[in-house]
């Protein structure tokens, strides 16, 4: 079983699909008094009919054309910054249509998965020839995965029959466009679908909900007809450099107010009042308002979305923090919690722990490690000097031991527990000169440091500990488990907050972006920009390259906006007042106990202005 399958909490063995003939089914239904197919049989080959929304589903709508979509102000800003050239980036060329758009274009096949023992449908599968995507809709009442489990393009779907409609709930979706003009549903969004069959016709109705980019659900219907003789095609995508000589990490986008195409749909007679979208444009009363020329010719403000908290939450009650143990891939597991992530790798003879969280959590980490392996902890890696990366060094090192190989330095009172490995700036920041009282106990200090770009060791697989200079701090490392194909990204990547840039400790926006680009460069997706190399952030969910790309793009776009504003001679206060991060605040802008959106802007501004004056 792959680790992704493990995330799906499979409760039953998946029997072979074994469809009996229709007559046998009918007899069984009569005998048992219940249908073998829970309600309606959805299986078959279905051909798309693109009679509605043809313009949107075929050639695509115009840039800036958002009428009929309940966009929030953040959603409109996100869309307005979108540049079609983004799709030329190699890391974005193979992005598939997400579940939101599964029935937008291609022919589909639907088939049940039947448990041999019970003859119950435990899942419906749906394949679309458009980009060869497959979805699974679980019918066996299994719960949706942990909040720390990976998000995918098709998400995690469960279905239930409501009368003769199959109602599907989908969560764990990657951020993805539902229209090809920069209209995104965030990874906090979800779907409710109804599949409704009438003889040889089927309707797929989808409600796209998103607390960040939509103010109401966006509802669509798609029509298909049964086509038993249909042949579906496969699809292969190989990314390549479509535009030569682009600098690494280049992210095409429009700066606020500089997208020249936002009103292009006026050529179809779409009134300016409607073009920007918003829930009101969906309703019949809006049509009547358009009869007033002054109303029709004025761009309407977009409504605010869900409010972003402005006050930091209290620090997590460490007594109540519990780690969720999730297998990632190969030999790697993550201990995920609201206090951050700890990564555990199991080798042939020993265990490596990447980051040790805050000191009071040490016993919980050790207990969680015991759930995974009884082998001794031999290595600890600190990806930075932060207390939430190093706090448990003493206890966790003490619980481990060296087993052969190089012994740790034992002079100076250091215990002979697990080795603590870090880039040398980490030691510099944790240690003090002889004779000075240390803030951090000596036993917590790294025992093995390196000042080279990379440190390598072997623990059942090759492990690269790679320095990312001047990123979150000056001592950041990422840890690449080569056979497991997992990267511990440390604090250069988060699915929770804007990047934490500790300028006093040598961090910089340029270093964060460089580190993100480096992770993108060494990660290889399995298929359709999904899976393959998994990336574990300092905080948040298990991710893959596509998630890092989304984050890298966000950081780069905000960097570019601030840079542009500095060039326009705007002050820091003016920049902050401009709401330049509004399209991402709902996703990353909520303050944590130690980091806020304002601190992020301050850091980027200071970094860019300092760099400029040098």
């Amino acid at each position, binding site marked *: 079983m792959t680790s992704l399958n493990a995330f799906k909490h499979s409760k039953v063995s998946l029997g072979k699909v074994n469809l009996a003939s229709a*007559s046998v089914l*009918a*007899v069984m*239904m*009569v005998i048992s*008094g*219940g*249908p073998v197919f829970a*309600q*309606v049989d959805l299986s078959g080959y279905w*051909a798309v*009919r*693109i*009679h*509605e*929304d*043809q*313009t*949107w589903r*075929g050639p695509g709508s115009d840039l800036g054309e958002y*009428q*009929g*979509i309940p966009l929030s102000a953040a959603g409109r800003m996100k869309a307005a910054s979108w540049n079609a050239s983004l799709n030329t980036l190699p890391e974005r060329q193979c992005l598939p249509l997400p579940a939101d758009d599964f029935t937008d274009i291609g022919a589909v096949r639907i088939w049940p998965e039947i448990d041999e023992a019970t003859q119950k449908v435990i899942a419906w599968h749906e394949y679309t020839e458009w980009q060869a995507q497959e979805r699974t809709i679980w019918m066996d009442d299994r719960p949706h995965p942990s909040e720390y489990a990976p998000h995918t393009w098709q998400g995690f779907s469960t279905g239930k029959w*409501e*009368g*003769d*409609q199959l109602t599907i709930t989908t969560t764990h979706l990657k951020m993805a466009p539902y229209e090809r003009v920069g209209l995104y549903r965030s990874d906090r969004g979800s779907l*409710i679908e*109804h599949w*409704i*069959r*009438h*003889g*040889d*016709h089927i*309707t797929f*109705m989808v*409600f796209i909900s998103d607390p960040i980019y939509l103010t109401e659900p*966006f*509802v*669509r*219907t*798609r*029509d298909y*007809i*049964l086509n038993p*003789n*249909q042949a579906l095609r496969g699809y292969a995508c190989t990314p390549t450099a479509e535009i030569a000589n682009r600098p690494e990490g280049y992210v095409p986008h429009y700066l606020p107010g500089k997208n020249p195409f936002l009103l292009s749909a006026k050529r*179809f*007679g*779409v009134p300016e009042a*409607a073009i920007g979208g918003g829930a009101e*444009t*969906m*309703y*019949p*009363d*809006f*049509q*009547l308002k358009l009869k007033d020329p002054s109303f029709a010719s004025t761009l309407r403000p977009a409504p605010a979305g869900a409010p972003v908290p402005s006050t930091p939450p209290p620090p997590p009650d460490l007594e109540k923090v519990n780690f969720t143990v999730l297998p990632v891939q190969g030999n790697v597991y993550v201990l995920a919690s609201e206090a951050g992530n700890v990564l555990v790798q199991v080798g042939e003879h020993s265990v490596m722990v990447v980051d040790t969280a805050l000191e009071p959590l040490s016993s919980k980490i050790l207990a969680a490690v015991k759930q995974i392996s009884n082998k001794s902890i031999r290595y600890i890696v600190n990806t930075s000097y932060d207390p939430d990366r190093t706090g448990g060094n003493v206890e966790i090192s003490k619980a481990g031991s060296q087993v052969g190989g190089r012994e740790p330095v034992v002079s100076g009172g250091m215990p002979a527990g697990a080795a603590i490995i870090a880039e040398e700036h980490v030691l510099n920041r944790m240690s003090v000169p002889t004779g000075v009282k240390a803030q951090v106990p000596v036993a917590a200090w790294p025992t093995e440091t390196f000042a080279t770009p990379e440190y390598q060791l072997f623990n059942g697989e090759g492990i690269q500990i790679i320095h990312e200079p001047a990123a979150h701090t000056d001592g950041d490392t990422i840890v690449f488990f080569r056979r497991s194909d997992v990267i511990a990204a440390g604090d250069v990547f988060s699915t929770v907050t804007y990047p934490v840039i500790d300028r006093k400790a040598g961090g910089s926006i340029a270093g964060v972006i460089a580190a993100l680009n480096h992770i993108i460069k060494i990660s290889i997706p399995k298929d359709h920009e999904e899976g393959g190399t998994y990336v574990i952030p300092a905080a948040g969910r298990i991710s893959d390259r596509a998630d890092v790309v989304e984050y890298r793009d966000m950081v780069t776009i905000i960097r570019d906006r601030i840079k542009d504003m500095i060039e326009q001679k705007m002050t820091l206060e003016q920049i902050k007042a401009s709401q330049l991060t509004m399209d991402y605040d709902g996703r990353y802008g909520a303050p944590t106990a130690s980091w806020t959106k304002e601190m992020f802007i301050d850091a980027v501004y200071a970094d860019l202005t300092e760099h400029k004056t040098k």
Partner: protein
Amino acid sequence: MKVRRDSAMLAAAVVFSLVPFSLGAQTPQTGAASTTPATPAATTPAATTPAAAKPPANAKEAAPEDLTGQWMAVVTEDWRYRMILPPKNDYAGVPMTFAGKKIADSWDAAKDEASGQQCKSYGAPAVMRTPGRIRISWADEDTLKVEADAGTQTRLFYFKEPKSQGGDWQGRSQATWETRATRNGTGGNNFGGGTNPPPEVPKPPALSGSLQVVTTKLKPGYLRKNGVAYSDKTVLTEYYDRTKEPNGDSWLVVKTIVYDPVYLSQEFITSSHFKKQNDQSGWNPTPCSSR
């Protein structure tokens, strides 16, 4: 809910569904879509001993779902073709024949206005796609009434023999409650359907929540305001499905299948969605408009 879902009824319905006979309201079929294989008849004791439950006396009593009330169109699709007057020659998505294109290319809104034909885009094949509100109520126990405020139109769906002779914008509509057998494409009867349920076979319970309406004898009109035409040969098949959402909302999905051998090269299929209102607000009857 008046659906009886006990096992005996279900078994009777399933067996009933496997007995082949012609539908009361046939939908024209085109192409590969109509190739669903016929299922052989089954003979079991259940087929000859139907449940003794009293059959519903009329369509209203048989209704598996309450569709009545006021519903508001939510226009998230084809916005350019529905909320504003689309440009001449813009027929994206419509499978038109050459004859259909020729008609549309000669569209002239002023000419329609001058000849009093402003309601051409409010006929049954188009009115459910028009931005506005609809009210569904029972005109009598076997006739469902659908009023649309856009264009101030009224449609009558007859579960018994239609009283309307058609020839107008709304034509002659035959309604049936759909059964699960029909949904699966295996044949079978619907409740209602007018003339020809075989007398020797008992009517099954209405297992499905869907309403099927087949409309014929239509006065020629427009599918879209910019002259996309349908002819008097048109057969319109509609399905009405109600959903229940986790937040308590309810939506009506109206699937519209327009078969026109004159102006369409294949069935023109759209689905329009309406949100249930808990009140009567926003009802705003307006006259037909060519623009």
